[in-house]
């Protein structure tokens, strides 16, 4: 009977499949519902967590949220180009240059330093510090816990006696690393053919041209 009605058969088949897949999709949408916004978490994990606000947002997480909503990824000077590259890889977009308008771009890591004899103990820097890295009490000298300082420099501005400065962290053996060789095109620039082609080269020992 149904074989004689190909149109009807096709219709029934299509509707049946639509119902079945619709049910599966509906079930999956409820069963595997994603809580929160995982992309914000992943972006936040790449940001340097200095909470410095140089991006124009009050902390790293708000900036992560803004990036997820389409803001530029190159507004984080503390993270540097490395962070921009990592974000570009994560979001699968071309990596832009770091936007230097957002603040000082410097590879040198800095931490806050309080010139202790000048400190009057006003606690303003303590309130400004987003990671509780400044130790002190009212009318007592304050000091920076170097291991906790993120170098966000938010404490510099509130100081009424300007006794806080950002000092570069000394390089130690522990964080020393080999430098990457200069890019090939830069190293080849300015070289003559005699520098490159072996048979043109003057040997060190004989001073004559190699055969």
């Amino acid at each position, binding site marked *: 009977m149904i074989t004689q009605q190909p149109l009807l058969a096709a219709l029934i088949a299509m509707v049946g499949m639509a119902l079945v897949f619709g049910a599966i999709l509906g079930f999956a949408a409820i069963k595997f519902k994603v809580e929160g916004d995982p992309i914000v978490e992943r972006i936040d994990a790449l940001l340097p967590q200095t909470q410095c606000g140089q991006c124009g947002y009050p902390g790293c997480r708000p900036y992560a949220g803004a990036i997820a909503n389409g803001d530029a990824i190159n507004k984080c000077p503390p993270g540097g180009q490395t962070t921009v590259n990592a974000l570009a890889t994560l979001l699968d977009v071309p990596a832009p240059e770091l936007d230097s308008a957002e603040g000082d771009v410097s590879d040198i890591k800095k931490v806050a330093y309080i010139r202790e004899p000048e400190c009057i103990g006003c606690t303003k820097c303590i309130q400004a510090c987003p990671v509780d890295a400044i130790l002190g009490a009212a009318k007592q000298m304050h000091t920076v816990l170097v291991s906790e300082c993120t170098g966000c420099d938010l404490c510099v501005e509130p100081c009424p006696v300007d006794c806080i400065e950002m000092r570069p962290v000394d390089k130690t053996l522990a964080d*020393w690393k080999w430098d990457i060789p200069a890019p090939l095109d830069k190293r080849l620039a300015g070289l003559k053919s005699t520098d490159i082609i*072996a048979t043109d080269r003057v040997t060190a020992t004989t001073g004559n041209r190699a055969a």
Partner: protein
Amino acid sequence: MRKIWDIPGGIHPPENKKQSLSSAIAPVPMPDHLILPLNQHAGAPAKPVVNVGDQVLKGQLLAEPGGFISAAIHAPTSGTISAIEDHPIPHPSGMSAVCMVLVPDGRDEWCPHHGVEDYTAASPTALLGLIRDAGITGLGGAGFPSAVKLGPKQPIDTLIINGTECEPYITADDILMQERADQIIAGVRIIAHILGNPDNILIGIEDNKPKAFEALEAAAQSSSTESSATGSTIQVVEFPTKYPSGGEKQLIQILTGKEVPSGKLPADLGIVCQNVGTTVAVYRAIQFGEPLISRVTTVTGEACTGNGNFEVLLGTPISHLLQLNGFDREQCGRLVMGGPMMGFTLTDTSVPVIKATNCILAGSHREFPPAPPAQACIRCGLCAEACPANLLPQQLFWYAQSQNLERLEAHNLFDCIECGACAYVCPSNIPLVQYYRAAKGEIRKVETEKKKADHARLRFEFHKERLEKAEADKAAKREARRLAAEAAQAKVQSDGESGAAPTAASTGVEDIIQAAMARAAARQASPEEQQAKIERSIETAKNRVKVAEDKLADAANGQFEAEQLDKLRAKVEDARLKLAEAERRLVELINAPAAVNSEAVASKLQASPRELLQKNIATIQQRMATTESKIAEATDEAIIAALRTGLEKQREKLSQAQQELAQLGDADDQPVEDKPALDAAAAAIARAQAKAEAMASLSPLEKLDASLDSFDQRIAKAQEKLASAEAANAEHVDTLRSALEKLQAKRAETARQRQQLIDQPREQ
């Protein structure tokens, strides 16, 4: 013959080992000073246990391990610690680190030390402790603390001794195996005992060291015949020379065919690998109690006239060794610590020999020509063929160039042993290993930064949470205060409703009154407390006076000098003053409330019913005045009517009050005799008020008439007085006369005003 396996890749660079093998291990004359870096090993730096200026003996502990992965440092000879300061150390960075500087005294005097008589009777743990105390680290090049490596948690079934020494130029292990084979075998036995006598004990040697192989084979044979009962046989295995078969993982693969998985340790496969030099150090530490204070180091290269191996005290400056071997700086193209493949360039010859220094290579310009310029990668794939770790060097190179750290890790960059085989075969002369080292450093840096960032995030979140909590606490307190205030108001309201029925508007006022009363009550309680406090202070002051007087009495007996006596006297005086002050305060306090009370009572008493009534009358009059003005202003009939009735009522009240006052006035005169002045004043006030009232009700013309009358009276009186005064010839006649003149002038003025007032209507 044991089956051997092959490793992938590998290269065959010129060996250059013959130069330094012509002579036996030679001693080195004592240098002027020894420099002992606190971090000669992998892991945490050692912590000094001696101070600058201390005299130390050979073998004495100078610094103890600074952590689990760390090693002790001992004095290589007797002498004085002249400094503990920053000094350049042998490190690719060329940076400085904290070093101890020891100035030898030339006596080379040992501190008391003794070995273990029978190590087979000692527990492995005790022996490991001795090895740790002796500061032994791997002498192959990496400098990993041996006690850690020899104490794995996993069961060990294979012990491999590394005598491969695959790097060109280096012969330190070769000569050691040739000359001290028996010590090596003895050390192997001790290590085997510590590891619980593993089934397989293998010594791997490349076939380019036949003399070493023979020596070790012979030593192993005699050892196994000697102690066949204990332990398994030691197999010395020879295999074809190929660089870099001396790498730990590579040697394991050659000898056992097993590949150490990525990210795992040989111990995970039940294998422990040790360098031959380390076995000798272990032997000397256990047998004689000698810590690791010297090692065999190869000094070679064309820039040195003499090449050979030396028994060098740790801390010997490299310049001392080079000088000994006729080093020519002009000839030297590159000074390297380690081998030509994996070593690093030294920029400073003042750096010392450390535990991991197996070779000093002073290469001439011919041996180490300047690196030819790198060219583009041509994707030839030679590097992948040469890689002993089965990596893809050119892929790693691309990713390292573009800093794609994720892809680098995905391509197992950390399995690269940095052997340099890829760079050796590269036709484009690309310094590949440099890229890998830089990339590894970058990845480690990113990881530490990530850890720091996570830590900072935690702290930031905690900071935020803390602020929010403080804010919430404040808000809760505010809310609680608000609720309490509301409840109190409600209570007052309900009290008021059940009581005398004050209106809703008056509850606020009552609140204030109640609060004031409560405050007053609280204050009333305080004088008692104050009194108690003052009494207490009097007690203490009395005590103090007593103590001071006692002291003074003692002092007066002649035990003290005049100055002290004065001081004591001053003290007594001071104490007495304090006592007097306290007593005075007490008296004040007792009198004060009485004074306040009496005043209040007096004012209340003085406020007689008469005065109250007068006040009442004044208020009513005022009210009437305002009502009248309101009536004048009002336009609405109803309001005017209401105001009028109010005015009527007030009038009634006024007349009532005045009546009462009149009655009271009659009654008052008799009983209140003691206050005539007060009554007189009250009467005067009443008269003045009555007058003012009368004045207010009069028209201006009448007012002026009245004032004229009064002027006439006063002038009459003044004339009388003047007359009597003139008669008596009194002094104030002039005054009286001028007063009379003034009165007359005023009267004239008033009369003029009156005339004007009368004339005005006519003019209009």
